[in-house]
């Protein structure tokens, strides 16, 4: 029998540890496929976060560094400065990038570091068990906001893509979701674009990927997909927030 589809070479054979219905697996695959399709898997260096994706070094079939919580963009900066001809990416969740690592991501973006950032936003701290993150929606119940996030004591959800698009440094900022086949294909194009930007030396590229966390949202996987589309996307609209200047002109 002929083999028509194979697992991408960009991933190892190790089974994911992620919970049922979690979309980290899809996003890992999109990143891995982009590296393979662009022919740069052998040049790639990935930086893992702290959080659910801490074990990403087991899954991506390239050299990986596990960084301290939130520090991946700074570590990536160091790697890229020493190895400018390699493809350097970070893979970070919202508890990592949008909370403890806010300073690092803003300044890596502001410096226009020629790195690619995959930012997985599931509106909650996943690994530690569902605490409120800066990206948690208003009214969303978490273990530290059991009656829902309230503006009065916990403020508003942080929109990272919009925030970074307002900084001069970045070349490419997009937000995608992996909630449907159509959205997954769009996400794949954005991830690939973010690596192309780096290969062209255009500078900092970030793709925010809206992701599910059925376990900590207390929803079944299908319900979680619907919740992402119905609740998250209105707060975190999809689209490209910044593209390289020459593309803007044409």
């Amino acid at each position, binding site marked *: 029998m002929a083999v028509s589809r194979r697992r991408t070479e960009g991933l190892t054979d190790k089974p994911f540890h992620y919970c049922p219905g979690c979309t980290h697996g899809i996003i890992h695959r999109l990143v891995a496929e982009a590296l393979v399709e662009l022919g740069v898997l052998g040049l790639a260096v990935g930086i893992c976060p702290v959080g659910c994706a801490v074990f990403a070094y087991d899954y991506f079939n390239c050299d990986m560094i*596990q960084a301290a919580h939130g520090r991946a963009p700074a570590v990536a900066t160091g790697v890229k400065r020493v190895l400018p001809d390699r493809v350097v990416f970070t893979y970070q969740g919202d508890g990592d990038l949008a909370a403890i690592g806010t300073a690092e991501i803003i300044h890596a973006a502001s410096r226009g570091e020629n790195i690619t950032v995959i930012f997985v936003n599931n509106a909650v701290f996943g690994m530690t068990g569902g605490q409120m993150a*800066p990206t948690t929606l208003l009214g969303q119940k978490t273990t530290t906001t059991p009656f829902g996030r309230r503006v009065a004591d916990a403020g508003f959800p942080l929109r990272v893509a919009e925030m970074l698009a307002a900084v001069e440094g970045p070349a490419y900022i997009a937000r995608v979701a992996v909630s449907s086949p159509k959205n997954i294909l769009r996400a794949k194009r954005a991830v690939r674009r973010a690596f192309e930007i780096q290969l062209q030396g255009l500078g900092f590229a970030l793709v925010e990927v809206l992701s599910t966390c059925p376990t900590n949202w207390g929803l079944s996987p299908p319900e979680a997909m619907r919740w992402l589309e119905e609740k998250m996307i209105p707060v975190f609209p999809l689209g490209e927030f910044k593209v390289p200047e020459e593309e803007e002109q044409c």
Partner: protein
Amino acid sequence: MARVMAVTGNEAVAEAFRQINPDVCAAYPITPQTELMQRFAAFAANGKVDTEIILVESEHSAMSACIGAATAGGRVATATCGPGLALMWEMLFVASGMRLPIVMAVVNRSLSAPINIHCDHADAMGARDSGWVQLWSENAQEAYDNTIQAFRIAEHVDVRLPALVCMDGFIIGHSITRIEFLEDELVKGFTGEYTPLNPLLDIDNPKSFGPLVLTDQYHEYKYAQHEVMWTKVRDVVLGVAAEFEKVSGRRYGLFESYRLDDAEIALVILNSAAGTAKDVVDSFRERGVKAGLLKPRLFRPFPYAEVAQALGGLKAVAVLDRADSFGGYGPVFTEVCSALYPLAKRPAVINKIYGLGGRDFLPQHAERVLKELEEIAQTGRVSVIKEYIGVRE
């Protein structure tokens, strides 16, 4: 009447925080501490406490917010562990330098790299020199009792320093054990109303905290911290412990002496592993070996004279450290040696490093060390001063 419950160490400390009802808690989730502040956040959400919970973006900000709240005159508590405590490091010195009586639970966790979420004491030992009072707890009961006492110690007018209360991550933090909770009114009565010493917004007496002090006076500020740690804290800890015994029936000192009175050999060991080691000491006693154990409770300030008195008459002592100072000896070992050095006649002392990153400390580890001590006691010869135990080949 005490309430007897089965809870985790994290729940036990969260319950102490609930009973004390601090004004502000600023915290950030980190394994294995998360459960503690999460349970406390639930108390706040359910209206069981009036505490202002601040869910900040990092531990550096958590301690900064605690410092702000404490300077404003609030009673402040927080919790963290491992890399979270490491990220707070800069702010730890600010809290103690400003003499702010913040109480923090530390659910001991190892430090990266490699990343590891399990227990060792590298976190709190890294904070050793930060000017915080340190209390260590063998089990959930001690963590609960120490937390309640920590507020009284930290806030005592002779002290006015931040205090941290350690318990072993996962081993104690996540394990469910029997605990006796004191009644709410009793705890509230014991800790009392908090009176800030020099709060902000006292309009008639305006204040500034933390202004620039250079060569003219900085040395004197540090001398003041030294003086209070060196001369005041021990007495306050003992005074608070005596009062606590009256309300709880549970006795605490600067350290626990276990079968030490007539001992010839002894282990010195912190936190949960002391529980395991005590069983082994018992089995040696049954064989007629005069073994004992010393479990430090107050690690900062370190009670040198009292430890010297407790251990000075022994023949051989092994200090077991769940943290290393690479290129040096374990942190508890250096303290015990410093305590014993002024004595004319002192025991031989060896150092074992155990249990890093959550490696199990087993009875046979304690057995092996006690046997080595028996031999040293007989021969007077030490072959290796510092050694790792439980290392896989």
